[in-house]
């Protein structure tokens, strides 16, 4: 079943607020081998001008994917999650995320295209802080493999 191209352009509601925590930053940093002290040492982060410890460059994917989940689960989109493969990921950081940021993610289906029996869905997620200032634009392309 190809993905329904009519959902292109659809925007989903913002996710509930998520608070970036020092503990979660530390866990993610340790999981990807990120040893820069700005992730775990408050003094090191402050000495470089950050308000608190800094999230690693790919940290926000989990928040972005909370937004994307609404698109993926939209019954009108017809996305078969069991055939979904992550094809591409991009982050544009408008400023680094730091512990204490309270953020929301708003996902838009930017593009749906069919190629070679597969569907490619591009989702753009705007992550903003509590003052609605942009923090990060996360773009992902997922491939929904066609039936064999």
């Amino acid at each position, binding site marked *: 079943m190809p993905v329904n191209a009519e959902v292109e352009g659809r925007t989903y509601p913002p996710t509930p607020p998520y608070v970036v925590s020092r503990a979660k930053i530390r866990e993610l940093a340790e999981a990807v081998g990120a040893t820069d002290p700005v992730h775990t040492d408050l003094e090191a982060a402050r000495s470089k001008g950050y308000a608190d410890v800094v999230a690693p*460059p790919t940290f926000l994917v989990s928040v972005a994917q909370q937004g994307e989940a609404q698109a993926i689960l939209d019954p009108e989109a017809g996305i078969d999650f069991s055939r979904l493969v992550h094809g591409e990921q991009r982050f544009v950081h408008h400023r680094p995320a730091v512990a204490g940021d309270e953020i929301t993610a708003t996902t838009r289906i930017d593009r749906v295209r069919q190629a070679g029996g597969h569907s490619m869905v591009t989702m753009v997620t705007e992550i903003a802080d509590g003052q609605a200032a942009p923090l990060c634009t996360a773009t992902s392309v997922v491939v929904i493999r066609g039936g064999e």
Partner: protein
Amino acid sequence: MTQASVEVGQQLPPRTVHVERSSLVRYAGASGDFNPIHWDERFATAVGLPDVIAHGMFTMGAAVQVVVDWLGDAGKVLEYAVRFSAPVPVPHDGGADIEVSAVVKSVDAPARRAVVEITATHAGAKVLTRALATVATD
């Protein structure tokens, strides 16, 4: 990293990322991505994969550390994009190695920015393509 010390063609110190099953369990917990293809061999092989595979986002997150170590400040990674081109199977015995290298592709001196291209391979195959990090320099 100062602007003056960054040159097009400059090679960054490479590194080998060793991945064990435990690395994937740790990443699953840290990221909240509990898809069983990343930790349950029976499930992974039942859906046609050769073995448990690493999270693409694990590879993306680990690979950029080559850039962060060179840059000296993770908060100066302004943009980072990759295409996932091949999975990284992680066998129970011995795990897997991902070889990561990087080279400066372009420098925008007035804007104090540079673009670094990352290469990540496993068993000779590229696992990330079009992997580009835009960084801010001092």
